[in-house]
């Protein structure tokens, strides 16, 4: 961009400064709830529900301890005759007449989330990029209808199809399995993947592949060695969107899974302490659950802007 002091497209320093102040103010305000989640994870139970809300407090590992363990109430006499505490969480529990009896379900749920989210993202991208390539390069009968059909599958409320999917999965033995959830999330994401990736592949000049074909590559080799490397940005952008959806999905997870394959989103809200929700533990779980997606987003933020218009308004 060629810009000098009086360039018409370069905003004046004053307007830039005002814009900057407003945007930063907005960003800071929207971060307050998140900062609160993060802080609450390090509060003790009484601190988390103190009035007025406590900004300064003594950090406590109670939330994280309660997140990872299950405890049972015991009589003081029983606790008194126990051997010395084996860890920080055990010590915490004993101060309120509790004993750690085992690990909570958080880690298995988190692992399920990882496997299902990354599995379905990989599958969506593979299916999406191949279908998008075919739609972009070949004469497919009723192409526009097929594309609209693919997009329209996204308009269905998840609850609307949950019962038939539940009945169907029960018949084929996929209910409450990771594979079942991977296939389900892939089916939801693949429409987005096809549309996004078709936009990106349309932009890659056909001449590259044609040159490769002349050079003796097969069509499949040309696709793998010429088109795929060119479509990297699109593939990354698509992967981010698929991953965010699969990682965060709640409706299907809560309706179709109960144990084996349950992911973290239905689990975190039901962490109950004594007398209601255990907010420090909920906050700790939320923080840990938000972290991977946050890291992923910050690392790959440059691809987001291109992906988000869905390829629909590409010129």
């Amino acid at each position, binding site marked *: 961009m060629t810009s000098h002091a009086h360039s*018409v*497209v370069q905003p004046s320093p004053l307007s*830039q400064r005002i*814009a*900057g102040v*407003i*945007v*930063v103010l*907005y*960003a800071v305000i*929207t*971060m*307050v*709830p998140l900062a*609160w989640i993060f802080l*609450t994870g390090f509060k003790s139970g009484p601190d988390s*529900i*103190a*009035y*007025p*809300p406590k900004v300064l407090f003594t950090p406590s590992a109670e939330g994280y301890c309660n997140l990872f363990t299950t405890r049972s109430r015991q009589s003081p006499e029983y606790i008194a005759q126990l051997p010395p505490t084996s860890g920080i969480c055990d010590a915490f529990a004993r101060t309120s007449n509790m004993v750690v009896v085992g690990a909570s379900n958080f880690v298995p749920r988190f692992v399920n989330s990882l496997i299902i989210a990354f599995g379905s993202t990989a599958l969506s991208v593979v*299916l999406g990029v*191949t*279908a998008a390539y*075919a739609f972009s390069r070949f004469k*497919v009968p009723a192409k526009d209808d097929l594309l609209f059909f*693919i997009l329209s599958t996204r*308009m*269905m*409320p*998840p*609850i609307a*199809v949950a*019962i*038939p999917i539940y*009945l*169907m999965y029960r018949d084929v033995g996929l209910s409450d399995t990771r594979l079942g959830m991977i296939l389900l999330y*892939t*089916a939801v994401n693949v*429409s987005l993947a096809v549309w996004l990736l078709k936009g990106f592949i349309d932009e890659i000049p056909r001449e590259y592949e044609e040159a490769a074909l002349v050079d*003796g590559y*097969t*069509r499949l080799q040309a696709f793998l060695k010429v088109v795929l490397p060119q479509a990297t940005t699109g593939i990354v952008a698509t992967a981010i969107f698929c991953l965010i959806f699969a*990682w*965060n999905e*709640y*409706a299907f997870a809560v*309706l179709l899974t109960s144990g084996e394959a349950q992911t973290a*989103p239905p689990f*975190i*809200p039901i962490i109950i302490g004594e007398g209601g929700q255990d907010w420090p533990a909920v906050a700790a779980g*939320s923080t840990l659950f*938000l972290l991977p997606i946050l890291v992923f*987003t910050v690392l790959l*933020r440059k691809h*987001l*802007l*291109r992906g988000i218009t*869905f390829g*629909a308004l590409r010129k």
Partner: protein
Amino acid sequence: MMNALDPHAVLDKAVEATPAPLARRIRGLSDRAIAWLFIAPTIALLLAINIFPLLWTIRLSFTNFRANRPNATVAGVGIDNYVSVLTDPDVWAAMQATAHFLFWTILLQTMLGFTLAYLIDRRFRGHGFWTTVILIPMMLSPAVVGNFWAFLYQPQIGLFNYVVSFFSGIPPSSFEMIGSVKLAPWSIIIVDTWMWTPYVMLICLAGLRSIPNYIYEAAEVDRASRWRQFWSITLPMALPFIMLAVLFRGIENFKMFDMVNLLTSGGPGSTTELASITLKREAFEKWRTGYSSAFAIVLFVTVFGLANIYVKALNRVKNR
């Protein structure tokens, strides 16, 4: 290029000398086979996990089937389910709650999102970093967010009430965001706007960046004021993008379930009971599978129809 040692040239010659059907086999799969091979898995998956259940839902909607009584005899009831859906006052209440939610979330998110995009497009120092910060809420799990906002909205101990009372002087326990009939619809609008304004902002930003600089330069030559430039260049050219954002948010919020389910679960009473929440109640609490299937189809047809009309309007604006 015709170097005899070039393996590709040799290969080409070999291919020329081979009969056509054999050559195709050597050169790999035909284009048609590849097109088929590349599209079929996607279509098969969508047919199995999207279309087949949808057809099943349609079939169930004409029966009195109940998913919690799989052994009871199922009888066809014709269009009875559809009649009772369309005459059910609860359904109309849910539709009204959904319309209220849709209207305000889209209005607020579009205004805020476009303003933010416009300001970020001033390209002040550090705009890249702050854009990333603003995006964070939309990356989060709506269920986890809804659950946590229920904590922020607690009347006595919640941060939200405390901050409001700090700035306005109203005692923090004098109002309940999710407990009162008047405020509950706004509690879900606030959370949705907090979460999804960044999404609208991103799409608007893509729109603003797609406007070529020379148009502004030409306007400057013609001595058009900044105000005039905004109304006759910036806004019209970004309009297709704004409309696209409205479409995506509209479809998503019409289906809204997870965040609201965890924040208010439709309450108090049924003031925040959006269509999907009513659907879940009918399907998974009352187990009226036939009835809920009919309701699901009514919802799907509504979104599908509205989206179709809207896309036509969008295409007209785009091609203007």
